């Protein structure tokens, strides 16, 4: 039963307190994310001195190169390597996430039906998630050895961890193994909040199990699934550890954008490296934007709900959600 003025004061106080509580996080994020992002942008416009000036002396230090690092990416000697890495990154993301969604949803459906063994299954599904990616890469390298267990099982002699399509395939298998259970977990959480009587009503109406899945289950877990897929896609776009350890550095068939940028940086070519990293950053930002705008990935749904309740309760102006479709 507060008056408007009192409430305005309270809102102002809450704002000040929020600023106080949030400031440490923003200082840290500004230092470890904001600064590097700006530094990378600046860096990508320079090239380290390899040029010779008018008198024939080698120029030391960084030279302003304008957009040379970017134009060199799209046309020039480096273009082939860039487009290959761009293609690999996109290919791995599309294929692995598609496979993970199918396997993850299947896992969630099975786990949702489970009456026993729940604890056991729940614990084992976390094992692939907990194994460090670098370790899982070595594990799969061992499985994919020429005389390893994978070839013994399929009775074939495939050289998995050399160049070529089989190397791509090895990376995909290892990645799907590690991350499909994670999608399964998230989808299971979404399944568990669907009320049972919806299914009973569908059964009464004579819907087949398949029809129930398509018409009830999938639409109802869609919000959870879209968010899970978004985070998996963004994760796949920055893939590095797995191909780097499993197949190796500078392997054409599995080189991703992150690997390319890393390789340039480790050879002290910071300008091109920063340009590749910036392009990858833009690529990821665009994909995230598309997900949020077109697919309505409700990433901060809970926050927005509270905002809406607050709007209904109190008159203080709330910022329009910028990332979430209204």
């Amino acid at each position, binding site marked *: 039963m507060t008056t408007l003025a009192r409430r305005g004061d309270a809102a102002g106080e809450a704002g000040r307190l929020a600023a106080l509580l949030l400031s440490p996080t923003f200082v840290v994020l500004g230092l470890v994310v904001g600064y*590097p992002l700006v530094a990378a942008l600046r860096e990508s416009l320079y090239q380290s001195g390899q040029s010779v000036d008018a008198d024939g002396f080698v120029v030391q230090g960084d030279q302003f190169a304008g957009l040379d690092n970017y134009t060199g990416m799209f046309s020039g000697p480096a273009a082939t390597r860039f487009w290959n890495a761009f293609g690999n990154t996109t290919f791995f993301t599309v294929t692995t996430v598609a496979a993970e969604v199918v396997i993850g949803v299947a896992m969630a459906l099975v786990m949702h039906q489970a009456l026993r063994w729940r604890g056991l299954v729940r614990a084992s599904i976390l094992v692939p998630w907990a194994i460090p990616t670098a370790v899982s890469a070595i594990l799969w390298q061992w499985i994919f050895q020429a005389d390893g267990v994978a070839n013994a099982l399929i009775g074939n002699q495939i050289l998995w961890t050399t160049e070529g399509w089989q190397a791509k395939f090895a990376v995909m298998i290892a990645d799907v193994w590690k991350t499909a259970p994670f999608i399964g977990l998230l989808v299971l959480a979404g399944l568990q909040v669907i009320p049972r009587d919806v299914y009973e009503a569908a059964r009464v109406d004579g819907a087949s199990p398949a029809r129930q899945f398509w018409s009830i289950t999938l639409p109802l877990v869609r919000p959870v699934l879209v968010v899970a897929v978004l*985070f998996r896609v963004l994760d796949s776009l920055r893939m590095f*550890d797995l191909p780097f350890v499993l197949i190796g550095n500078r392997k054409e068939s599995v080189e991703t954008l992150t690997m390319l940028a890393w390789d340039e940086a480790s050879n002290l070519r910071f300008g091109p490296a920063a340009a590749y990293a910036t392009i990858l950053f833009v690529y990821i930002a665009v994909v995230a934007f598309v997900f949020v705008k077109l697919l309505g990935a409700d990433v901060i749904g809970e926050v927005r709900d509270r905002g809406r309740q607050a709007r209904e309760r109190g008159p203080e102006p709330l910022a329009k959600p910028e990332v979430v479709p209204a």
Partner: protein
Amino acid sequence: MNTRVVLRYAGLAAILVYCLAPFYWMLASAFRRPSDQFSLSPIPNPVSATNFTAVFGTDVGFGRALLNSLVVAGIATVLTLLVGVSAAYALARLRFRFKNAVAALIIATSMFPGISLVVPLLKLFTDINWINTYQAMIVPSMSFALPLAVWNLNAFFRQMPGELEEAAMIDGCTRLQAFRRIILPLAAPGVFTTAIITFITAWNEFIIALSMVNDKSMQTATVAISRFTGAYGFDQPFGTQMAAGVVVTVPLVILVLVFQRRIIAGLTAGGVK
């Protein structure tokens, strides 16, 4: 009805095999004798710990790498929680302007590709002599650990009834006191779960640790494993690597087994890896 039960168990068995078979193969390979390394028998016979003694041999320095991982992941986790708890509480409880923008910004940072960080920081750390230091790995780790922790904690704080603080504030606590004395103790399980998830993520980090360190004695365990060389320098010592992989992974698996319920609650509430 019976076929349904059979199918159900077959599905569960398939999930178990899918998740555990590769992990089991790592265990089995780690416990073989080096002379049996390429044996394909499902159970190592005889069981031998030679690979493990090799891992902790003086020339490998794996014990040191484990210690480095522990220091880096441990300090990163503690710092992240110290900084993140207050931000998570503000997002969960307070009503203020630009709240959605703040939440969106914190989530956006978690989508940030690590390489965009590594390139400029590599140059910066070279200039300020931070290469081969712990802080060169800990500070960048906060870029992904902090958004993750804030988001998880936010989900946990939101599950707590708001009446708790209101009651405390009526009894004369300030909001900060109510948070410190009432909410934080009650949210301890959530904070602890967030700590585990953050620790595992930091422990598994690879690209930062690989880039910022070139001195073997400062390598973390994940980097050390990927760089094992055999006795002759060109054969890959898979037995030793499998044993090292077991050593790195088993503590995580035990954490997962003990706290599985909480970890899953955290992962699904946060919705962010």
